[in-house]
């Protein structure tokens, strides 16, 4: 089993139980897992391959999907499924054949009600994933602002 960031700190049998709630989804090269604005009902764990997370951008009057982040095996994608208003804020597609485990919000919340310890660990891991994204993009945003300031003062 791949070392999965969302399942860190769980006993192997607990991790297996969580994984058993999921459904394996195979993505062919170029396939889209979810699209910006779609209803987010499942969170995904990348079991194999890679996912590109993109956002639309106007480039010379054409809308182009611009890479924002890449996720590879062991990483979690689509945490919008657990955060209101449950809508994806990015588009995810597979640049190569990729396998993901889809965990539905419904299955997870039912399981969490019966297993609060697992719920705590998963919530903590999820906050780490979200926190890391926040810190990363905060730094990237500030670097862009710095460049804008330098251009303006030049």
């Amino acid at each position, binding site marked *: 089993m791949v070392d999965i960031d969302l399942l860190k700190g769980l006993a192997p049998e607990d991790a297996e139980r969580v994984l058993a709630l999921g459904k394996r989804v195979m993505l062919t090269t170029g396939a889209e897992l979810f699209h910006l604005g779609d209803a987010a009902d499942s969170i995904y764990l990348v079991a194999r391959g890679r996912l590109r997370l993109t956002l639309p*951008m106007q*480039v*010379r009057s*054409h809308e*182009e999907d*611009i*890479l*924002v*982040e890449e996720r590879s095996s062991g990483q979690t994608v689509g945490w919008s499924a657990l955060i209101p208003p449950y809508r994806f804020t990015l588009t995810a597609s597979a640049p190569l054949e990729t396998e993901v485990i889809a965990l539905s919000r419904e299955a997870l919340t039912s399981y969490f009600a019966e297993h609060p310890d697992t719920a705590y660990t998963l919530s903590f891991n999820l906050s780490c994933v979200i926190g*890391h994204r926040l*810190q*990363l*993009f905060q*730094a*990237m945003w*500030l*670097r*862009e602002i*710095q*460049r804008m300031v330098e251009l303006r003062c030049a």
Partner: protein
Amino acid sequence: MEMLLMGACLSVFGLAVCCLAFGAATRDSGNTTAAAPAVEKETIKAAVSPARFFVDPPVLPMAARTRVPIEALLLQIENHVRLEHAAAECFLESPNASLLHSRTISTLVN
């Protein structure tokens, strides 16, 4: 006699006008030579300069206006995002101001 004087006056006036015109033309070319380093910058602006005296601005082909092909531009953007991502990861490993504002080799901004 009067006709002769009038003709002489007109000739002198015409000569003066010619001298002034020649002087102005010579002075302009001198200034252009002095400002030679600025010419490079001016040529870039020429494509968007307003119309002058019945001359329409040249209509440049799309390829000339957008020198970098869109595929190359998209690759530059993607490369820039990856580099910025890596720089931000380095900052998070060891948060300090110099790592936050480390220089990039991205061709998109250099």
